[in-house]
């Protein structure tokens, strides 16, 4: 009973309070409402005016430049609208293979090309993971792009390439500086994993070594004029560290130079021809040309390259590629044991031709390479040594499950050791994997 009366009292008090408050407020609130209604009316009128003004403006001038921005997908995009995949650009290429030959590991290590190189084959029977190559790319600032290629091998990490390229020079000029692969010839300018075969062509091995010229420290200047057909002119100043054609100690400063011209025409919508001459010359001083002897002098390597690519459909392509190299070398050859020197004169050449046909995921290729083709001058103290005609034939079959994986079976019959006459019959099963945003390969 008590509880009920208490609660009813409470309700009464509460009701009274609110009632008086309500009565007091009412007039005030009515005034406020009227006021706000008026102000809303004013706002509406103003907005109507703005709308009308906008309407007339739009009707007068329906030009897109006055329209509001239309970028619903405004995003912080990377390079070329690229994703996080592509800026900064980072990728890894893994090269693994199984190797088999009729020769022993020792025989291969001692297998040079007589009259050209004493450097043996750096191959072992069995399984090898050659390298995991790291590629970096990023713009440095509005004027320079940076590239690096760092192969990680059992021996550690190397700097194969690390260079900057200008991006803001006008009229088709460009400067590259750092350690880079020379554009002197075709196979030299490509990364080994982009080659159509597992190994380098025989003339390269004979004149430049198993890895070609490789990354060289230097500066490159190129010029692409706006001509009716694609023609690029280039010149390079290189340190000259290749230990077969040049040699680190041949001279203290840069002692290797190149000039090259490359042209290309589209013969039809489906086929393209690419060709050009080049020259690489400089000072030589190394002990890798003849056994137990040091060769010093001047060398020039002239090159001529031609590539024809036919791509009749999107999943079918035939590429025929050939290069001719001619070496002239004059200097002295010094026996490292006796110290006796003789004049040396060399004029030797070589060429290779290769074709690869790719359809869908498959590719089939063939290559023929030979040296001492038209010229085989090797005169030590004016006495000619005849080294015969080293040559090799190669066939390959590849399967590419995706753009990022390549499996290649290659067999070759190598008759480059003309002195002992022993052939090297090789079979290689190679696996190549690319992860990340690997930049597109050039033509």
């Amino acid at each position, binding site marked *: 009973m008590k509880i009920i009366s208490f609660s009813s009292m409470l309700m009464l008090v509460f009701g009274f309070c609110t009632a008086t408050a309500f009565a007091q407020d009412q007039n005030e609130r009515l005034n406020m409402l009227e006021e706000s209604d008026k102000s809303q009316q004013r706002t509406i009128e103003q907005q109507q005016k703005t709308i009308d003004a906008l309407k007339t403006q739009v009707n007068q001038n*329906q*030009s*897109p*430049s006055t*329209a509001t921005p*239309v*970028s*619903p*997908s*405004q*995003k912080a*995009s990377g*390079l*070329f*609208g*690229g*994703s*996080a*995949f*592509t800026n900064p650009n980072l990728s890894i290429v893994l090269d693994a293979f199984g190797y088999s030959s009729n020769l022993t590991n020792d025989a291969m290590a001692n297998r040079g090309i007589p009259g050209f190189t004493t450097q043996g084959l750096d191959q072992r029977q069995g399984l090898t993971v050659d390298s995991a190559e790291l590629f970096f790319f990023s*713009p440095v600032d*509005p004027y320079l*792009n940076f590239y690096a290629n760092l192969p990680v091998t059992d021996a550690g990490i190397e700097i194969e390439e690390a260079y900057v*390229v200008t*991006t*803001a*020079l*006008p*009229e*088709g*000029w*460009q400067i590259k500086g750092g350690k880079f692969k020379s554009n002197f010839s075709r196979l030299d300018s490509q990364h080994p994993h982009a080659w159509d075969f597992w190994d380098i062509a025989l003339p390269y091995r004979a004149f430049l070594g198993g890895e070609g010229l490789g990354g060289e420290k230097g500066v490159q200047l*190129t010029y*692409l*004029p*706006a*001509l*009716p*057909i*694609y023609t690029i002119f280039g010149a390079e100043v290189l340190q000259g560290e290749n230990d077969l054609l040049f040699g680190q100690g041949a001279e203290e400063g840069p002692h290797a130079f190149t000039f090259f011209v*490359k042209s*290309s025409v*589209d013969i039809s*919508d489906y086929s*393209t021809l*690419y060709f050009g001459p080049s020259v690489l010359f400089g000072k030589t001083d190394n002990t890798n040309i003849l056994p137990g002897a040091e060769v010093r002098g001047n060398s020039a390597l002239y090159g001529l390259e031609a590539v024809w690519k036919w791509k009749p*459909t*999107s*999943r079918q392509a035939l590429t025929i590629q050939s290069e001719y190299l001619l070496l002239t070398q004059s200097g002295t050859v010094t026996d490292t044991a006796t110290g006796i020197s003789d004049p040396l004169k060399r004029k030797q050449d070589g060429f290779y031709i290769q074709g690869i046909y790719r359809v*869908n*995921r498959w590719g089939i290729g063939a290559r023929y390479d030979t040296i001492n083709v038209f010229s085989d001058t090797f005169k030590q103290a004016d006495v000619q040594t005849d080294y015969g005609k080293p040559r090799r034939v190669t066939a390959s079959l590849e399967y590419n499950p*995706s*753009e*990022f994986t390549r499996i290649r079976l290659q067999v070759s019959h190598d008759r480059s050791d003309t002195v002992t006459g022993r052939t090297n019959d090789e079979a290689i099963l190679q696996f190549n994997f690319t992860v990340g*945003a690997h*930049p*597109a*390969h*050039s*033509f």
Partner: protein
Amino acid sequence: MRKIFLSIALSLMFTTSAFAGLNVLATLPWIGSAAKEIGKDKVNVTVLAKPSQDAHFLEAKPSMILAARKADIIMYDGLDLEIGYLPLVIESSKNPKLMPGKPGNLDCSQFITVLEKPTTVDRSMGDVHPLGNPHYHFSPSRVLRVAEGITRLLADADKSNASYYEANYKAFAERLHEKEKQWHAVQLQGKKYIAYHKYFEYLADEFGFRFIGYLEPKPGIPPSAGHIEGLIETMKKEKPTAILVTPAYGMQAAESLSAKTGVKVIVLPHDVGSMDNTGDLISFWDKINTLLK
């Protein structure tokens, strides 16, 4: 000899300045067509891809580099569709006007709403486009926005002709709106289709139909026997209207699936100029609409 040299030098000097208008380089025919609608005779448009070529399989060629060397503006689809060749072409062109971040580098995808942008992506999913589906040229409304962006760029780059470009844009927009009424009169809402590649998502988005399966198990991965079997099962249940395919990408597989299921194949043009009577953007969409009727 000296005369020859002189004439070569002179012709070199004049080749760059001989053209009056802006040199526009477009990666794909539809982009070239859009640039042409706006720029008309005030621009020289060059297109890298041939209409018969599929955009996915282009490779860098020296002639592309030369075209980029001569261009004032490069216009591209974006969303990584051109990642296989365009970065190399631009970089090798040695043309500072086209470098990323410069006004002469126009990524057309910046103007549109992207479909199918994956939240997670890696390459086990196939050659998926990590930024979303790049084939937005099947959507007239999106291409109109691109045309608007192109108009602003051209008007900025060539101020003396700004009103000319704006007038051309207006005319194009009006013609398109007229046509859109016709296209939307064709009832495609709710229809089900099969496609070879994820090519027509924007078309479906625009006209309200949908896809119940694709011949490619993953983008860029050719169909396997097992995948086709599953697809045939789905088709039996769902009864799609047709299998959609383009002339340059997946025709054979689509025809063999059609033979197995009795569902007809409709070959749609993949770009402007890839089939008869698809010479410009509007006739390209017109053709698609007629084929789907």
